[in-house]
């Protein structure tokens, strides 16, 4: 087991536990909870096996759903994001997922921001659509998606910058 795999396993479980026991209970402004576990899906290396990544996304979402007694919204949202991540990468960076990591060492800040924004907003949209699952709740879905996305985006940007700073 190399260090990267070990790193992945540790971050998988730490994000899972953090999300379930900490971030699901923030209830900022009443209902808004950031979804920090997306960091795992965002920071997973781009050049790894896509099939395995889809299974990882499914496992992560499924575990969160199981532990937090929610229906299946995290599973569907995380699974969909892990499946569509290569297309989002392609769209925001203009490179394919097979590009070696060395080429992505210094992506432009705007590209990185676009990538984060797309992943977070799509994930939240799917999540709230599944949770409400009704045309009548369209306004609620959009409102929750918007507010939660902003909250998650700010937190993820903050944590990511800390993490990257300590990494360098």
């Amino acid at each position: 087991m190399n260090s990267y795999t070990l790193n992945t396993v540790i971050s998988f479980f730490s994000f899972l536990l953090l999300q379930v026991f900490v971030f699901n209970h923030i209830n900022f402004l009443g209902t808004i909870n950031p979804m920090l576990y997306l960091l795992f899906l965002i920071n997973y290396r781009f050049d790894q096996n896509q099939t395995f990544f889809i299974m990882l996304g499914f496992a992560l979402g499924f575990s969160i759903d199981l532990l937090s007694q929610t229906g299946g919204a995290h599973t569907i949202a995380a699974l969909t994001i892990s499946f569509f991540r290569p297309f989002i990468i392609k769209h925001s960076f203009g490179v394919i997922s097979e590009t070696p990591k060395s080429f992505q060492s210094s992506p432009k800040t705007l590209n990185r921001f676009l990538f984060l924004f797309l992943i977070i907003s799509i994930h939240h949209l799917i999540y709230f659509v599944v949770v409400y699952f009704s045309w009548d709740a369209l306004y609620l879905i959009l409102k929750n998606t918007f507010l939660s996305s902003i909250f998650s985006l700010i937190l993820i940007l903050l944590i990511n910058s800390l993490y990257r700073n300590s990494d360098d």
Partner: protein
Amino acid sequence: MQRIINVLVQFKNLILYLILLGISLLFINSKSDFHQYKFEKYGLYLSGGLHDFSNNISGYFDLKKENLRLHKENSTLKVLELKSQALPLYTNKTIVTGRFPFRVKNVRVIKNSFQNQRNYLIIDQGSEMGIRPEMAVISAQGILGIVKSVSKHYSNIISILHLDLKINVQLKNKSAFGSLVWTGKDPKKFSLNDVILSSDIKVGDTLITGGMSSYFPLGIPVGQISKVETSPKNGYFKISVELFKDPSQVHYAYVIKNEDIDELKVLKSGIPQ
């Protein structure tokens, strides 16, 4: 086979995604009552639409069978209708004995002419099915004619669109009798002859068959009076009648059998002419 495997390998991510998505949908379906209800609603909507669609198509192929079934059912109802129309009009016979001597058989009109001065119809049943000459033929909304001759499987019918056929009719709720004859042009336009001037007749009065002919039961609605003219010369009205239903546009008909016709014939032959 190799190609199938290649395609599977090529789309393995998509297939995996769809399988896992299906699993999560099953998961959400089993865990959340709200989502279960929603899925069932959409499923019902979908299956309902599909069943409706297939039902429409199969119903179209069953139309002929269904028509025959309805026609058969109608013939049993027709007897009841005729009976209920006639019962208050027959003074005491049917009321006392409860006997109604007319039976109905449903037939299909396979030829119907109306261009000539003397028109005939052909129906798809004959002597094998119990059709005899001199039986009456009616449609759903009026009378059609009288059986003239029968073969084994078909019958020839004198249409009421025939200049020589006179039908005994009477006014509903009034005791004025007359005979109905076609005018020879419009299949709905008839004239009512032999109504004496003393009777009280107005435009809009309903005509029903009179019970004197022994072909038709009493009380089948035939038409409506559209014009009344008096001609003082001969002491009769000149009355125009419009039928309820165009006899040239009829495809299904009923043959009426009078079970007492032999009895009546014997009686009539006993009267010295």
